[in-house]
């Protein structure tokens, strides 16, 4: 495409305010838009993301169990509530621990906690068969609750927790659902985060943060848990078998972030003492 034609198209898209969603940010294109961001609470990650999570878009935090998804989400909620803003957490299977929230620094009075069905629906007995109607119902309700929260506005961070949702149930969510939610969020001064096991819901301008359980050279016990026996013991952590849980955060996809070639951010959760 000739350069002049391309510039014309880009100018038209800019006029229609479609430049964020349709035109990829390329170096030297002159379209490097600095989106408004919400800090994640981790300076190293914020630096790589160009300030934090983009507002007006759905972002994702994905990873396997015990990879630190909840810890990262709590750090985000803590950052938002400590700024004096409101945040909402849609807890699909009612699994969040209030003591952990408080310990992570979340201002509880600024958090709207929407508790879904109990975790039994996500963890049915093996005899229950493949189909899990309880999980489907819980996810559907959680999506409706997220929609209500987004429509009401006023929250600076809206988190939807699908970390324990069965992958089959998640795949049954129509794509249009995510598009509809994205449409509601668009233009708001709010960031939205979905936690899950696989990338599923990220909108065009959002980011996908993939978490893994620590780097290979640190996996002394093979589970991403830093074992104090192999570390130089510090006085504060001496004697505690699980002084920290290491995770690596990689920016898997981010359209509006200028460079994604940075080193993964290492997340070391503080000692588990709760």
């Amino acid at each position, binding site marked *: 495409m000739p350069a002049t034609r391309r510039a014309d198209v880009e100018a038209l898209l800019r006029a229609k305010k479609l430049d964020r969603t349709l035109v990829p940010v390329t170096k030297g294109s002159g379209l490097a838009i600095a989106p408004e961001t919400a800090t994640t609470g981790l300076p190293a990650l914020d630096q790589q993301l160009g300030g934090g999570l983009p507002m007006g878009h759905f972002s994702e935090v994905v990873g396997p169990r015990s990879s630190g998804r909840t*810890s990262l989400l709590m750090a985000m909620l803590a950052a938002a509530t400590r700024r*004096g803003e409101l945040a909402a957490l849609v807890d699909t299977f009612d699994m969040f621990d209030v003591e952990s*929230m*408080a310990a992570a620094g979340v201002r509880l009075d600024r*958090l709207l906690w*929407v*508790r879904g069905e109990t975790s039994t629906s996500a963890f049915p007995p*093996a005899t229950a068969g493949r189909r899990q109607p309880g999980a489907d119902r819980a996810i559907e309700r959680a999506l409706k609750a997220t929609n209500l929260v987004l429509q009401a506005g006023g929250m600076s961070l809206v988190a939807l927790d699908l970390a324990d949702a069965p992958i089959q149930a998640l795949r049954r969510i129509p794509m249009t659902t995510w598009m509809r939610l994205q449409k509601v969020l668009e233009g708001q001064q709010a960031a939205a985060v979905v936690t899950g096991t696989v990338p599923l819901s990220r909108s065009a301008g959002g980011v996908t943060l993939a978490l893994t359980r620590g780097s290979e050279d640190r996996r002394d016990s093979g589970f991403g848990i830093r074992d104090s026996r192999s570390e130089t013991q510090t006085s504060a952590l001496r004697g505690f078998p699980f002084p920290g849980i290491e995770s690596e955060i990689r920016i898997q996809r981010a359209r509006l972030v200028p460079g994604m070639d940075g080193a993964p951010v290492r997340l070391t959760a*503080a000692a588990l003492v*709760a």
Partner: protein
Amino acid sequence: MFACLYVPPPAGDAPDATRGFITRSRGAAEPLYAGDETVTSALLDIARMVSPRVAARGRCQVVIDVEGLERLLGDPRAIGERLRQAAEGRGIAPVHVAVAGTCTAAMLLAAARAGVTVVAAGEEAAALAGLPLRTLSVLSGTAEVASSQYSVASRRKTEARSKKQEVRSELAPSRAPNPESRIPNPGPLSVLSRWGLRTLGELAALPTAELSERLGQEGIRWQRLARGEDTGPLVPALVEEPFEASLELEWPIDGLEPLSFVLSRLLDPLCQRLEYRDRGAAVLHLRLRLVTRALHIRSLQLPAPMRDAKVLRTLLLLDLESHPAPAGIDAVTVAIDPTPGRIVQESLLTRAMPAPELISTLVARLQALMGDGRCGSPALVDSHRPGAFAMAPFVVEQGQKQEARSKKQEGVVCSQYSVASRPNPESRIPPLDVARGGPELVEGPNPESRVPNACLRRFRLPIPARVLMDGGRPITVRTDRQALPGGRVGASAGPWRTSGEWWKTAAAPGTTELASRRGRAGWNRDEWDVALSDGGLYRIFEDRDSGRWFVEAVVD
């Protein structure tokens, strides 16, 4: 010009021991005795026939602003006569009426002289000069009565508010500018009597500077009153207006949609009246009379004063969605407990919070979707029970209040934080593995710290597990759940032995669902944190009473 209606106390031989006033109803052979409040209320009714600007000042004493009523009612004497006749017509006798240029002069003259007394404007000091000094004691009772009336009004308001707002309203009277509080301390009156002063004229004639040197500002205020000068403006008493509307339906209705129209019809004028009065709804009552003659009553406690008809209607409908009427509806009544309107001072430094109407509607919608008690703010509870928490209403403080509160709460958050993150040495028994050294108290991370805490994801109903032990430590953990197969234990920490609430029964309030199922409220267990070969890090525990194992949480 001001008029004052005053009913003097009866002589000491009144049959009512609790100070009553004789009221003679027409045609009644025996006089009736009524209390202060009844007489004052009757006087206010009479005064409102003449002017809306009326105020109760003191026991059985009512002041009326009659300025500008000459063309309507005649000269001041005619106004006074009219008031006296109206009082006698209501059976209140004797009644003293005084009309003067100032409120204070009218009150003092009414207290001292029977019948109707009229003093031209500017001649108050001369008219008061001959009155005895003790007449001023009438004014000293004013503050007491006014404050009691204020507290009655305040009490009524606080009944309609939540507990938190009650505290606020209790504090309000001390800050509110109460004009009655300008009545000086009656202490100096006895000093003046000892000086030999007998009349108001003698007090008014004293040199002000010397009086101030001896009695301070209190003395000056009493002197101003003796001259008939007002110390504050007249604050008219407002009529307490009931905010209630009802509608009898020709045909019973069933379902929310037709009810929505009825509610709109009732709420629109109510909210308009609230706006005119600068009031907001604190509590919203809905009474539905059903075809079965039963009453279906719902009351909504609102987190902030509201007067938007659409919002109130939505809240009522959402509440009825969760608590529907069991039969067709015959009559609908909506009543509102009013409270002063909300005044919000926004801050330039913080992001504007969403309106309480918006938050209330959102929470009501979410509760209708998820169920009661499933939506709100999480709150910590003072308990060692693992996973204990409470749900608090999600309330947004507005403007500067919110800013001030957030500053104040920084300390609270820190203290909560340390409670949550630091293990209680009394509730934990050290791990049995002595070789690894005893546990040390790990300092809870600073809230400002950039290091996140490892968070738990709790199963509210712990998942039963099969645990194989070797050498006192778990080596495999298995469950019968598809998504949680378990595996070999790679690393473990524990056991942490905790117990508590053994004195409670399962039926005690606040017990968990699990406790209800087990039939016991307390807990007695050994906790382990284990890393399994399936890649997860879990918290498991053994119930020491039953010997059964459970997976309680995932560390994530």
